[in-house]
């Protein structure tokens, strides 16, 4: 009984990790950048949701749209301002830039909003209560999180597999130069990838807020790290990998809690990552290394 409710719990958490992990994996797939500022985009999303509900008194739907839109806009601006000028710089410069932006976002948030946690009135965003099936009761927030994540991931898969931009994304991630030589506007494709990743992060921010309704300048750090682990676990660069990795990390976390090892949760997640990387360095669903002829 308890196990089932913990599993649902794990799926809820895993959904959030998966959404965030997708942002990491897509950006890595396309420009080989580990975008460590990705988690902090979620933190900004948390504040946007918070203030649009508490200060703006907006309708919850408007607040949600503002959150997702705000995250997307922020990511696009950051990409144009900081990553785009480094297009031909060594990957290490990009990585350092990403870490710099992460620190900057955290400190700017702390400067303006203070370090004290503020509570997000998530009940305005999500229906309160739970649905009872037989002996189980599932909170609406869990249900909404799981459904919304799955819908987002299906939409993303259709976008990547079926649309022209999705094809261009896959082409750029395989061979940027060849794509350019076929007339693909690589800069637009990269910006679009950041935008999609950030939109998913915005959705993730709302869902994370429903689960842990406290916003602080550092909420993005640990969530970002966990999602990064999920992406690496699944095979960084692989979209299905990020989804699988997200759920794997989420379920692993609740199962360690279930086993009474809650103090070891984070440590165990890292341990599993290390083991997977030792056995399968490309992650669970990662691409095999391309052989150059």
């Amino acid at each position, binding site marked *: 009984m308890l196990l089932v409710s913990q599993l649902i719990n794990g799926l809820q958490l895993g959904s959030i990790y998966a959404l965030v992990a997708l942002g990491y994996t897509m950006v890595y797939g396309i420009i080989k950048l580990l975008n460590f500022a990705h988690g902090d985009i979620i933190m900004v999303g948390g504040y946007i949701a918070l203030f649009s509900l508490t200060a703006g008194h907006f309708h919850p739907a408007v607040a949600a749209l503002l959150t997702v839109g705000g995250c997307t806009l922020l990511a696009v601006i950051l990409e144009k301002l900081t990553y785009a000028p480094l297009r031909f710089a060594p990957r290490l410069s990009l990585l350092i830039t990403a870490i710099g932006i992460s620190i900057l976002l955290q400190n700017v948030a702390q400067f303006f909003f203070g370090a004290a946690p503020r509570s997000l009135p998530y009940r305005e965003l999500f229906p309160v209560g739970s649905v009872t099936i037989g002996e189980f009761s599932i909170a609406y927030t869990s249900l909404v999180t799981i459904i919304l994540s799955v819908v987002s991931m299906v939409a993303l898969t259709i976008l990547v597999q079926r649309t*022209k931009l999705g*094809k261009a994304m*896959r*082409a750029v991630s395989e061979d940027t130069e060849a794509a350019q*030589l*076929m*007339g693909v*506007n690589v800069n637009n494709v990269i910006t*679009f990838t950041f935008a999609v990743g950030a939109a998913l992060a915005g959705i993730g921010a709302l869902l994370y807020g429903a689960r842990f309704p406290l916003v602080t300048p550092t909420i993005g750090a640990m969530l970002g790290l966990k999602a990064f682990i999920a992406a690496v676990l699944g095979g960084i660069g692989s979209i299905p990998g990020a989804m699988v990795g997200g759920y794997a990390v989420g379920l692993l976390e609740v199962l360690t809690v279930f086993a009474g090892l809650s103090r070891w949760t984070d440590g165990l997640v890292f341990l599993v990552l290390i083991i997977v990387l030792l056995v399968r360095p490309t992650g669970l669903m990662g691409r095999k290394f391309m052989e150059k002829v």
Partner: protein
Amino acid sequence: MRDPKAPLIPERDHNKSPVLECVGLGIDFGGLTAVDDFNITISPTEICGLIGPNGAGKTTIFNLLTKVYNPTRGSIFLEGNNTKRYNTKDVNKAGIARTFQNIRLFKNLTVLENVLIGLHNEMDYRLVQSIFRLPSYWRSERIARDRAHELLSIFNMQDIADHKAGSLPYGSQRRLEIIRALATNPAILLLDEPAAGMNPAETESLMEHIGEIRDTFQIAIFLIEHDMQLVMGVCEGVAVLNYGKLIAKGTPAEIQKDPRVIEAYLGTGGQADA
């Protein structure tokens, strides 16, 4: 005998301005001059060969034409326009498409998707349409698919449209690269060793197809090739490169007799004594 000074223009292209013109093209990598003072004029439906020993700078010239490298010296004119300010993507939009010596297909995409990437610019398309799946999006998508199948039929590849490009046999991958390049609707097609790795029968059929592509699409084809049978068989003009310099230009028959070309390929008898 042709006047060796006269430009090589096939009869049908007389009175037409050239599709591609390189003037004094050169590039240095650090202290090394890879290509120097390269001049060539290619007319709108000409098939022109570029030959030369290994390391002569042939692929470098293709990389200059497609702006993978920026020239150190000289200019490239495409249909009369200087491509100085163009980047790789602009060059493609302006009408240069190419294949690669070491095949660079999008291996994890299907055969059809590879061609659709090439058709990218041909499709009128906006992001909003793809999100809301407007009818006009579907229409342009369908037109693109039909066009892609049409292009695939050149090499009889329609039936394998859904296969992963990376799973195709080597020869088919080379042919798919040509189709993908054609999909971008070029004025001039650059083929980098199209027959490399092909058996004689495949090379034979490729030769026919190169002529056919030129006739159907009315485009110029500029090709690098080591297979002399192919070069002498399909090219109307041949340029010979050695140590980054153009050493001879002429019809295949003239080139075969040119002492400088023979020297570049076989070396001089005197070299051993020098």
